[in-house]
């Protein structure tokens, strides 16, 4: 044993264990088989990426106003450019675009405000977003008040409609899902069976059937003259369908909370709703962020199904534009654009959920 009273001075790491070359060697080229796979992977990547970049950027046409401007072999983004405002606003009258723009601006500002941690007054912004904003948005988009000309909902479309369907669906499905999940665990037999039947009914039927029934069959049951707006029917169908899925996701989260949590809360004299609201739900929702966001993402993509009842969401309006005789033959560009738009929103949701998970992690695993 050597007793060394001095602190051993810091020394640089041995050569070849840090830096990019070392990283390559230990991750991509450690052994002949891994090296082979790395090279193979790079080759496949090369085969895919080069023609894509060539088509989408290098050989593409960007400016112009008609199909004659698309002379080159690559993508014709002129088509997207020419139809861009329709893809965003649907058939909304162009002299009223400013109304939709205000709603868009408020929508994204509110989301950013809630998402950026440093900004203050989160509670008031949330209350505004959930109560005042929907009213303001409706008045602005639909009109009929304050000399704003009325724009009927069958002219709403494009990205605007997709975002409307998705956000109403999400904001509606979460609370209904929570109530259904709690009801399904209730000890009251009537509440419990109602929730089970409700959940299993909506989960067992394809969304496309629900939307179709909502648009074709609902009017048969309603007294004549009492027409419910097609968009409202789609919103109700979509929300109820998603809340059944949400309920099952949340029930899974509730089941993962140890029984001792509710017992400890009960032993402190908390009522049922306080036990749920203060102790059980915050933990369950936190645990369920990936599942909830997953449901939100699938809801976002499911909104495209409203096409079958004659509403033109982002994908629907792109498809409609494809059949325009002046622009025949650009379906690839149209679908790539639609896919890209959907991807941006879904990917942002996914990233935000990962961020939330990290932020809310209080280092517990009981």
């Amino acid at each position: 044993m050597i007793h060394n009273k001095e602190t051993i001075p810091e020394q640089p790491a041995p050569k070849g264990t840090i830096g990019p070359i070392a990283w390559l060697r230990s991750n991509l080229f450690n052994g002949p088989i891994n090296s082979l796979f790395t090279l193979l992977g790079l080759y496949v990547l090369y085969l895919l990426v080069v023609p894509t970049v060539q088509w989408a950027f290098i050989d593409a046409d960007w400016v112009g106003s008609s199909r004659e401007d698309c002379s080159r072999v690559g993508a014709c983004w002129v088509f997207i450019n020419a139809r861009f405002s329709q893809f965003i606003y649907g058939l909304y009258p162009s002299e009223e675009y400013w109304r939709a723009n205000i709603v868009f601006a408020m929508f994204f500002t509110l989301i950013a405000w809630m998402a950026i941690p440093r900004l203050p007054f989160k509670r008031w912004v949330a209350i505004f977003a959930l109560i005042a904003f929907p009213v303001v948005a409706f008045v602005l988009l639909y009109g009929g008040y304050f000399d704003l000309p009325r724009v009927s909902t069958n002219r709403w479309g494009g990205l605007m409609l997709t975002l409307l369907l998705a956000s109403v669906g999400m904001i509606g499905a979460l609370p209904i899902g929570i109530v259904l999940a709690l009801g399904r665990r209730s000890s009251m037999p009537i509440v419990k069976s109602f929730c089970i039947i409700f959940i299993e009914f909506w989960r067992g039927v394809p969304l496309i059937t629900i939307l179709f029934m909502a648009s074709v069959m609902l009017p048969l049951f309603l007294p004549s003259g009492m027409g419910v707006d097609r968009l409202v029917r789609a919103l109700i169908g979509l929300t109820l369908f998603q809340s059944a899925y949400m309920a099952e996701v949340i029930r899974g989260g509730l089941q993962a909370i140890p029984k001792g949590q509710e017992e400890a809360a009960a032993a402190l004299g908390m009522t049922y709703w306080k036990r749920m609201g203060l102790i059980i739900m915050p933990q369950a929702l936190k645990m369920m962020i990936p599942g909830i966001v997953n449901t939100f993402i699938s809801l976002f993509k499911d909104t495209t199904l409203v096409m079958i009842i004659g509403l033109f969401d982002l994908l629907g309006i792109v498809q409609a534009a494809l059949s325009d005789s002046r622009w025949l033959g650009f379906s690839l560009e149209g679908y790539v654009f639609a896919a890209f738009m959907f991807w941006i929103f879904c990917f942002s949701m996914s990233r935000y959920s990962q961020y939330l998970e990290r932020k809310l992690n209080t280092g517990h695993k009981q």
Partner: protein
Amino acid sequence: MTQAATNASDLMVEMHNVNKWFGDFHVLRDIYLEVKRGERIVVCGPSGSGKSTLIRCINHLEEHQKGDITVGGVALTQDVKRIEQIRRSVGMVFQHFNLFPHLSVLENCCIAPMWVQKKPRKEAEALAMEYLERVRIAEQATKYPGQLSGGQQQRVAIARSLCMHPDVMLFDEPTSALDPEMIKEVLDVMVELIHSLGNKAAVDKFVIMGLA
């Protein structure tokens, strides 16, 4: 009548002919127990003999099927309001602590005084700090339960119960999930608390402990 009333205020917990079954399994058979204010009781018995079940019947975490339970003069019935009233005056410390992992130590202690007793946050926090001081863990107030050792967590759990100023404290094997070194720190805190609280007439308690 007067006689009965004074008696009732003296008796904190009464169990008369209490019977409980889990399905067909008869766990508690004709339990008779009376505990006066200030009295400390330890329930002993082999594992599985029903100590936890007995304790949990007192604040209705388990439901008994026959017999009468009265806590602080209030008869325990099916009525939810009554159950909650009794639970507010009965503190309980669990074998596995059951701290709320999404709340900090301070919030764990404040949440019931604030939401059940409707105390303002300032007052609840001052009270919580006082009890955290007593269980010698005040310096960890901003940490989360997941960052504490078992013994520290159990001390927080004791403080959390005491913040509700209960008339009755129930301890269900408070040290059996702990390592030997930690048992001592928790028992020391308990003994100290029982003495300090027991000496003040106004906050006399009785304590039931289940020890394996």
